[in-house]
């Protein structure tokens, strides 16, 4: 590699625009030349340093964020206790708790604002009016500094105000940016405004929001005892019921953070998510969004690396949804052993990142033991599942770069869809995965130019796997890899659908 080329590749890597093949060349070069690696890391360090030196940041944003984290950590425990108390308490006791919470929240917000403003170089006075009550349902109360304030037409809301509704829904609030909030019955909602944006805290009840586009650097967040929803421009609802918060998104996207561990989901239109101690923290398709699609009755787990889905996983989720399948999409780190053992069908994307052999082995072991029908396109998992012969990269599993074609190996098989020879499964060149399946596998398709590389293959339940054990459930390996599903041709999708149908037919009955 010439010096100029090395320097150019380094720059492209730092900007995250280095194509895979070039990245592999750079990696090989760095591995072979320790001096080049040191130089490269010098570049990384200087690049990040220059980023920091030049970036414009609002120091108040981090301060607010850290304080919020600390507050959640304290309140998580307090709220658990409070929820139990609320369930068991009388109305009077509940009211006292509310007033205490209201006063504490208001005091904390006001104090924080004062402290930060005092020390800010260019203090910004928050607007006296941050929102207005446009319509009030019977029994709604506005509490300011612990005192009840009468609500009249277009009552202005100030920082730290708390709105509490009674048995009727329909109270309507409009924020200064024209975001509209419909407040449900038996709901408590407090308002905090800072330069970082508006924050709505909802310890109980439910709200529907139609969020106006947020100005640059501002975001609207909705905080509940269990989670935080950060708006990325959208229409959504938040419902708090005891120890559970449910987010449903109608338009746009919302970042949903579970308070107990900071895990995040990006929930898109037509999806929902729940934060509760006994619920899987994953993305669910909203019932309203799939109402027009005839439900297939199939339920499946879709295990991915990150629920902020990449193009490939997004395409798969949309395909399954379009088929009427009920899909729970979970990040690998959030999957429990019980979910694996109780699922009927599991799809595992190559976007999962297996950090170290122990986790890979543990996940692979549980998946291998599961009676569910499993479809996998992470080839590094093939050895753990016993569906390929060994774990040597390049010999037992790997990928083919920039290809569109696979070759049908068994044209009479139903999964081959009466195709033969080389077929195009993507509309543009893509990276496709393969494994070295055993002779006990049913080989449907291989790499276009190498019959030893299995690209679509299955094992029936009870069949002898490559490692000599019996398959606990139907197993399938498919050529998809990372973003390939985003480029699938109609033929490619037909093969995927056929494999899903074949697998579901073999899924355990409940």
């Amino acid at each position, binding site marked *: 590699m010439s010096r*100029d080329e090395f*320097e*150019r590749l380094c*720059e*492209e*890597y730092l900007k995250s625009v280095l194509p*895979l093949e070039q*990245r592999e060349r750079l*990696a090989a070069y*760095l*591995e072979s030349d320790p001096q080049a*690696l*040191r*130089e*490269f*890391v*010098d*570049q*990384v*360090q*200087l*690049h*990040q*340093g*220059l*980023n*920091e*030196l*030049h*970036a*414009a*940041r609002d*120091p*108040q944003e*981090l*301060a*607010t*964020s*850290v*304080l919020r*984290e*600390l507050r959640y*950590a304290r309140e998580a425990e307090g709220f658990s206790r409070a929820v139990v108390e609320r369930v068991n308490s009388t109305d009077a006791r509940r009211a006292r708790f509310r007033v205490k919470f209201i006063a504490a929240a208001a005091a*904390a917000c006001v*104090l*924080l604002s004062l*402290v*930060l403003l005092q*020390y*800010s*170089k*260019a203090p910004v006075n928050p607007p006296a009016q941050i929102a207005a009550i446009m319509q009030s349902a019977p029994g709604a109360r506005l509490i300011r500094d612990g005192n009840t304030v009468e609500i009249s037409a277009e009552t202005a809301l100030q920082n730290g105000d708390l709105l509490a509704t009674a048995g009727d829904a329909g109270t309507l609030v409009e924020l200064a940016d024209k975001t509209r909030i419909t407040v449900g019955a038996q709901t408590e909602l407090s308002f905090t405004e800072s330069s970082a944006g508006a924050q709505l805290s909802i310890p109980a009840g439910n709200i529907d929001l139609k969020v106006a586009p947020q100005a640059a650097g501002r975001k609207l967040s909705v905080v509940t005892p269990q989670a935080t929803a950060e708006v990325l421009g959208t229409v959504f609802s938040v419902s708090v019921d005891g120890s559970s918060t449910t987010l449903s998104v109608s338009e746009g996207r919302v970042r949903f953070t579970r308070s107990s561990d900071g895990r995040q989901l990006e929930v898109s239109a037509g999806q929902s998510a729940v934060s509760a101690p006994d619920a899987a923290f994953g993305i669910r398709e909203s019932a309203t969004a799939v109402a027009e699609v005839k439900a297939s009755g199939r339920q499946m787990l879709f295990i991915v690396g990150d629920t902020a889905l990449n193009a490939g996983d997004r395409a798969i989720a949309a395909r399954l949804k379009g088929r009427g399948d009920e899909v729970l999409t979970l990040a690998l780190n959030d999957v429990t052993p019980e979910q694996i053992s109780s699922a009927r069908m599991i799809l595992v994307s190559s976007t999962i*990142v297996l950090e*170290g*052999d122990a986790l890979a082995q543990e996940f692979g072991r549980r998946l291998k033991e599961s009676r569910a029908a499993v479809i996998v396109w992470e080839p*590094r998992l093939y050895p753990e599942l016993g569906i390929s012969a060994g774990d040597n*990269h390049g010999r037992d599993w*790997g*990928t083919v770069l920039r290809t569109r074609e696979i070759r049908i190996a068994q044209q009479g098989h139903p999964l081959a869809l009466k195709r033969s020879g080389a077929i195009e499964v993507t509309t543009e060149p893509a990276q496709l995965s393969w494994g070295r399946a055993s002779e006990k596998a049913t080989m449907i398709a291989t790499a276009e130019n190498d019959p030893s590389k299995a690209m679509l293959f299955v094992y029936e339940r009870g069949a002898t796997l490559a490692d000599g054990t019996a398959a606990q459930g139907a197993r399938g390996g498919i050529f998809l890899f*990372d973003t390939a599903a985003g480029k699938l041709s109609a033929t490619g999708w037909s093969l995927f659908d056929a494999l899903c149908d074949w697998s579901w037919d073999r899924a355990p009955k409940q």
Partner: protein
Amino acid sequence: MKGQRVLSDEEIEQALARAQAGDSEAYGLVVYACQARLRAFVARYVLREAWVDDIVQQAFVTAYQNLHKFELNTDFPAWLRTIAFNHLRRELAKASRRHDRERDYVAELAARELSQRLDKDSPRDDAMLDALRDCVSGLPQRTRTLLSRYYEEGLPLQAIAEELDRAADGLKVTLFRVRAQLKACIEQKLAAGRGDP
């Protein structure tokens, strides 16, 4: 980092004392005042910019949770960097054993090297940011414009190349060499600061 008011050491100590007494809002001031230098420290050991935010936030939260162990009137920023150091070490250890050859083996190699450097460097060493700032200010105007367009305004290289009437590939090489030049300059300044010959 721009526009950030620098609090005096005394103001930070007062805020820390209040935070130790349970006033978490006072801790907001500490975060406000100390974050820029902590970010600069963390940025030296990360592969991705997004890590900086995560690790800095984690460090401040951990520091608060252990604030009772901090001795007032000692070096809080250094104590904070030690906490960030531990978070960094864990992240780099994870990144360097991903066995992810197909996707980003470059990152894996770099994480191992960064991890070694982290172990060698002292979290008490806080002179790097000032040295970098000094070195950047000593660059020719044209080079400073390049860095400003690239890092501050986030312009694509192609746009900068057109503005500066240069080829984009040539600018990539230039950026590499400017950073190498800055590295040499920083080492020189740090050595002078230590009184090395």
